[in-house]
Each structure stands twice: as C-alpha cells, then as structure tokens.
C-alpha cells in the first residue's frame, strides 16, 4: 500500500529562532552585491586619485570666495549684451542643427533597427554600430572631425550628430517596438506595403514619443554644444566661458555666462517636461 507522505513546510529560522522572511533570492542577491561592489570601488577610488597640488584647506574657502564673486557680483566685461545673446544663439543653433539632422537620420536607422519592422541581421548590425558610436565620447568625435574635416561649425555639428543619431536610434527603435502588433497585422492584412505600414501605422502611434525624445535630445545637445565650445573650440557661449575662466580669470564674467546658460537650460527643461507630461496624458 502506498503511503501518502506530506512534505513538512520548511520554515527557515534565523539563529535566534525568528522566522526568516527574507530568504535569499537572486534579485536581492544581485542588488546587494551591486551596491556593495559600488561602495567598495568608491572607497578604493580615493587611493587611485592623483592629488597633485590639492590643498583642501586652501581650496574650499577659495571656492566659496570664487562662487560668491561669480554668482553675487556677475558682470560682463569683455563683450556686450548683444554679443552675448549672439553667442547663446550660436550655441543653440549648433544644438538645433545636430538635433534636427540627428532626428532625420535616426528615424530611418531606427526603422531598420526595430525588430518588428526589420529583418534580424539588419537590426542586429545597426544595433552593434550604434552601440559603438555611442561609446565614443562626443568630444572625441568633435575633435576627430575637427582635424578630419577642418575646424568650424561643420566639424562641431558632424561630431555632435554622431552621438545624437546613436542616442535617438536607441530611443526611437524602442518606441517602434512598442507599437501594438495588431495595428501592424491589420495593415498588412489589407495588403499595405512596408512604407504604408510605417506611414499609416507606426508613425501616427509613435509620433508624440519621437517628438518628446527629440526635444529631450535638444536639451542635451544644448549643454553638449556648450561643452564643445569650451573643449573643442566650436565657438558660441561655451568658448566665451572657456576664455573668461581660462584666459582672463574673470570670475564675474564666468558668473554672468553661467547665469545665461542656466536660464536657457531651465527654459528648455520646463518646455521638455511640459511636452512629456502632455505625451503621457495623451497616451
């Protein structure tokens, strides 16, 4: 006769006899080991630093004094307001060009990269190329293009374009992949071609997302354009910032320029947040 044995429920207890409610699962293990590793690496990092000329006791009061001069007594001295506005416009222009071209290229590449609209080999190879392009810092692209294509706004825009395309392809293709497969199936069933599916199915349902990502990229590209002006001589307000701090040591001018950049960045951020909340409430 077969006896039915019931497995007794195992209750794990801690050493003190309490019931263990946090039995180790994989998620919490990975999570806590990630956190511990990051913590350990952070402590370790301070032994790897190069402390040449670092005098904290002197540097901290000095920074506070500098910050006070910058932000409480801002003043332009090497150029006027008109010129300053022009430089901000140049930086915005560089950002806008890289964003607009980037969005156009990224749109077509993302169609190739989206798994539901493309063939596997194409989508995989676009992804690999894009991951590579994204891994190279933008400033290196700009500097490389500056020698390869000559200095000027062309090099800056091309360099920024590379990174913008890579970033947007990732965002766009993820948006395309979330398109309801029923829409695509319905269109295909009516005999619509690939382009017709894209124009009438994919585009209408993702357009607001694409727009919101593109604007977010514009926000990023503005600060990238500032950085390129400072680090790669691409002109605009970033270059003036670099000159004011690195050549004239004019703290008050640095402060004023920082305020201008801050103002533009906040306006862009508010706009982008509005756009995003509109997209989410509509979707």
């Amino acid at each position: 006769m077969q006896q039915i044995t019931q497995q007794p429920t195992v209750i794990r207890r801690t050493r003190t006899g309490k019931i263990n409610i946090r039995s180790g699962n994989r998620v919490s293990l990975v999570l806590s080991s990630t956190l511990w590793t990051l913590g350990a690496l952070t402590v370790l990092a301070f032994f790897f630093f190069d402390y040449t000329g670092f005098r904290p006791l002197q540097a901290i009061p000095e920074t506070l004094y500098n910050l006070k001069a910058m932000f409480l007594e801002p003043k332009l001295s090497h150029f006027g307001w008109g010129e300053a506005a022009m430089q901000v416009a140049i930086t915005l222009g560089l950002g806008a060009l890289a964003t607009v071209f980037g969005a156009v290229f990224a749109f077509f590449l993302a169609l190739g990269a989206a798994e539901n609209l493309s063939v596997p080999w194409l989508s995989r190879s676009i992804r690999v190329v894009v991951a590579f392009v994204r891994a190279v810092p933008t400033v290196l692209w700009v500097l490389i293009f500056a020698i390869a294509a000559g200095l000027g706004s062309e090099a800056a825009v091309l360099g920024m374009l590379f990174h913008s395309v890579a970033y947007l392809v990732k965002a766009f293709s993820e948006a395309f992949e979330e398109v309801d497969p029923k829409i695509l199936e319905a269109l295909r069933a009516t005999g619509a071609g690939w382009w017709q599916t894209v124009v009438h199915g994919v585009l209408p349902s993702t357009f607001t997302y694409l727009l919101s990502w593109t604007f977010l990229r514009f926000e990023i590209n503005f600060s990238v354009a500032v950085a390129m002006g400072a680090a790669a001589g691409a002109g605009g307000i970033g270059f003036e910032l670099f000159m004011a701090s690195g050549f004239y040591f004019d703290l008050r001018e640095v402060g004023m320029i920082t305020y201008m950049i801050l103002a533009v960045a906040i306006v862009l951020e508010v706009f982008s947040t509005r756009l995003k909340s509109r997209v989410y409430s509509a979707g």
Partner: protein
Amino acid sequence: MNETVLKKRKFQMTMLFLGVIVLTYLSAWITDYGFVSSLEAVPGAMAWIFSNLLVDGEALGKLPAIMEKLIETVFMSIAATTIAAVLSLFLAIMGSKTTMVNRALGAVSRFVASLSRNIPVVAWSLILLLSFGQNSVTGFLALFVGTLGFLTRAFMETIDEASLGSVEALRATGATYWQIVSKAVVPQGLPQMVSWVLFMIETNIRSATLVGILTGTGIGYMFDMYYKTMNYEVVALITITIVLAVILIELLSTRIRKVIL
C-alpha cells in the same frame, strides 16, 4: 476619427515641419554652417579617419600608461556617481511629493537639484579648476555636482511612481515617517534607482573624458596631449580603450538590470 480631425492634424504637421525647416535654416545662418560643404566633408573625413587613426607598435608601448589613466577615470566616475547617489536619495526623499517633510525643505532640495543639473558640467569643471587646481579631485567634484542634480530628479520620479499605495498602507498602520521611508519607499524604488546609478556611471565615464580635457586630469588629458602633438596612433588607441571600457560597463549593467528589474 472624422475628416475635420484629420485635416486639423495634417495642418498641425505641416506647420511643425515648416517650423523645423525655418529653424534649421536660421541655425545654419547664425552658426555659418554650410550644408553642401559639410556633406562634402564627410567622405574625406571618413577616409582620413581610416587612414590616420591606426594603432601601431609604438603606440601599443604606451598602453600601460593609458590603462593607468583609464582606470583612474573609471574609478573617478564610479566614486562620483555612488557618492552623489547617496546624497541624491536624501534630496529626493525630501523633494518628492509623497515623502516630503515640509514644503520649504522640498523647495530647497528641488532648487539645489535644478541648479546642479542645469549648469553644464563644463561650467562646473572650469569653476572648480580655478581653486582646486589640476588634479583628480577637481574632475571628481565636477562629475559629482552634475550627477547629483540628475539623480535627484530621476530618484524623485521613481519615488513618485512607485510608492503611493504602500505608503498609504503603512501610514494607515501607524508607521512613523522613517519606517515608511525605510520599509516602503526605499526597498520599492531600489531596483529602479540602481538602474539609474548604473546608467549614470556609463554616462560619467564619457563625461569624464570631457572633464579631463578641461581640467587636465585622467584619460581626457592624455587624449588632449597626444591630440595636440598630432600623435594620432596613440589618439586611436586611447579612443579604442575608452570605447571598450564603456561597452564593457554597458554590457555588465545590462545584465544586472535584466535580473533586478
């Protein structure tokens, strides 16, 4: 969807595209950008890259020095991100609508976050360079300040999205503020927050190159030095090592993210 809606939509789209085209032309005019010349420059630039950016034996000899600087840079971004994350968590808890202590503290934390996020990392590095001098601490601080603002915003959104229900449940049982934060808000948002931290480490390694060029530290400085002396073989090698480091960290964090999210 009736005809008027479609017509209105078509009109809006046309206006949008016209606006973008006008904006593009305006930008090109202001920045003195030539559409044709930039198109012409691309093939030449590509040819230049493939014929000049080649690693040779002499450049490979510099690998140990490059690796040392690369490791310093990677450590710098990890340290800046992790320490910023700890502080951001407090700022986010103070600033989030669900866990706000009071309005004034919330406003302060949002203001600090917005200030540190919207002043570009370039401006921070140039400001800090003036008093901290040319060393790793300057780069670390510049990355730290920029990361702080970004992570505070990201954490705030995570807290707002995740925890309304459980916060209410705990509050109903009479839990204190700190119990609510430590038992509901933090554990629930933690995977998402770790994912943001990993994303920020990736981003910071790339930014560290830029900060390095400006503040004369780490791998960025090394790149700048060889770039200015036109030693393009070493420039290529440095670029490749940065790419490998970034891709390696990206792969690692993708795997971690897959498990925890």
